[in-house]
């Protein structure tokens, strides 16, 4: 709990700092935003346009637009929602379909609008779900991480993995099931963090 809670606070702090930097026109703030959202946004856009190359162009456009609207994006949730909505609009634009919503002004929280647009909501949920599962994988001990990646992402057999990692087949199996067990455990602990973040939200808003 302590460690996870600490991570959570660190992240909040990091968010506040980079948003502030971005609002003040400092490019480092934008670079941080890019580092955080590049991967999920590419994934999100590819889902619509089907091409990585097109998605890269669209993502570049979105960040330029976010930079121009930066003074209105003071909260991490506004930024995230803004990026997703822009990403969907740009994708539909590319596909020459009418845009979902107008973005002339940027409300403090898009949440309600997002929940009304089923399609964007589903795609955000898909993206964030995968993003957060991969973040959990990154927290695993190194051996478990490797086994997990080779097994699920690179379709390697137990034999291939045991050869690559110089482990016995039993050890590979053990690490794989341990990886899954650790993931589960991490998620249970995360329940506490959520309660904590809820309290945090309630008291600050």
């Amino acid at each position, binding site marked *: 709990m302590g460690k996870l809670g600490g991570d959570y606070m660190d992240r909040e702090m990091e968010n506040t700092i980079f948003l502030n930097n971005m609002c003040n026109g400092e490019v480092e703030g934008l*670079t941080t935003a890019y580092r955080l959202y590049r*991967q*999920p946004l590419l994934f999100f856009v590819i889902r619509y346009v089907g091409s990585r190359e097109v998605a890269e162009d669209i993502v*570049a456009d979105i960040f*330029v637009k976010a930079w121009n609207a930066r003074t209105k994006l003071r909260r991490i949730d506004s930024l995230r929602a803004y990026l997703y909505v822009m990403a969907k609009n740009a994708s539909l634009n590319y596909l020459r379909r009418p845009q979902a919503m107008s973005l002339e002004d940027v409300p403090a929280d898009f949440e309600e609008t997002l929940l009304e647009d089923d*399609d964007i909501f589903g795609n955000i949920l*898909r993206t964030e779900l995968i993003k957060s599962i*991969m973040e959990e994988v990154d927290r695993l001990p190194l051996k478990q991480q490797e086994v997990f990646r080779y097994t699920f992402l690179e379709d390697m057999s137990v034999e291939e993995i045991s050869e690559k990692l110089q482990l016995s087949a039993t050890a590979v199996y053990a690490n794989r099931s341990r990886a899954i067990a650790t993931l589960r455990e991490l998620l249970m602990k995360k329940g506490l963090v959520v309660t904590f973040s809820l309290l945090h939200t309630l008291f600050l808003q």
Partner: protein
Amino acid sequence: MKRIDQTVLQWKRYFINPTRDRATEIDINTFVEKHPSLKELLGEMENNDQFIEAIKLYNSLSQDDDHMANDPILTKILDRIQETTEIQPVNKMKWFSYALAGIAACAALVMGILWLQPSQPIKQPDTMELATNILPGKNGVRLSMSDGWNVELRSDEGGIITGDQLRYSDGSPLFDDGTQVNDAVMTLSVPRGNDFYVVLADGTKVWMNAESELCYPQTFAGENRVVQLTGEAYFEVAKDKSKPFIVETVNQRIEVLGTHFNVNAYPTERKSAVTLVEGRIAVSIEGQKERVLYPGQQALVTQKHLEVGDVNVDEYIAWKNDEFMFNEESLVEAANRIGRWYDLDIDVDPALKDIHLWGSVPRRENFGQVLKLIQLTNKNVKVEIEGRRVRFMK
């Protein structure tokens, strides 16, 4: 996004945990009923292969921090924002305060020169003399009450305090003969050329600018504290969480709990603005969802459009501190404010529409000081004064 984050967490736990709990399952299914597009996602997740394909795609898009510096997308973004930043000043706030300091220094210097040679920049010395004699007004603040009383207030006091007894700010009663007023609706009218303040029954302080009217009850009964404003006023609302304070203007509604803000809503102007100094407020206009303002932000209403942006608050509350502050304000717009304060009809030649004013002047001073500032900005502005009519020409 809180809702999305919670859903993400719930779904993630549900899929990773082998002992699925029934309650979560029902919860997820109900949610999917409401959001049909999630059915697809749910199906995808139930089908391991599809889900793993998605994870593989996601993973293939990763970029480690070492390579981030050379990322072509990032390079493209940075190139493009650099182009735009060169045109726009990055930090307008900072830039403005430096500029203001610079201007103050220049103004002090030029004012000194002006003092020594008063006739030089102003071509018609008699105009300056006329201008020096124009001062903000002193009289005409009226308080009318729903039960028929209508009194002209003593301006030298500057303010009144609402209560069972109506008093001036020095404590002296409004009515010498001890007239009692109860549960009345008050209308405080401040004419052009004047300002005034009132402390409402709940302790809220309202500073009113020239040509403004505030309508408020003598006591706040009911669930809300509601007042109506035409013109401009600065509010310091007394905290009372159980009774929201609401300011209504012709086209907007401002709801607060306890905070400091300025409202500028003159029916004769095409824009009206609410500027927040402290706390938090919600601004709404008819037919649109309310917008929450944070300190340093302004809600600007033009026609039927509400827009929220960051501003330099000092500019908008300068009047309350007895100052005129101009930050690149067009002469035409500034003329409205100045005219209202000195009770002048100011006419600006359309040829001067590109002239913008900079700097600040104390507004208790005579009109001549304002003229000097205008001529500092642009020497070619000529002035003609005839009674209360003023013309700015090229």
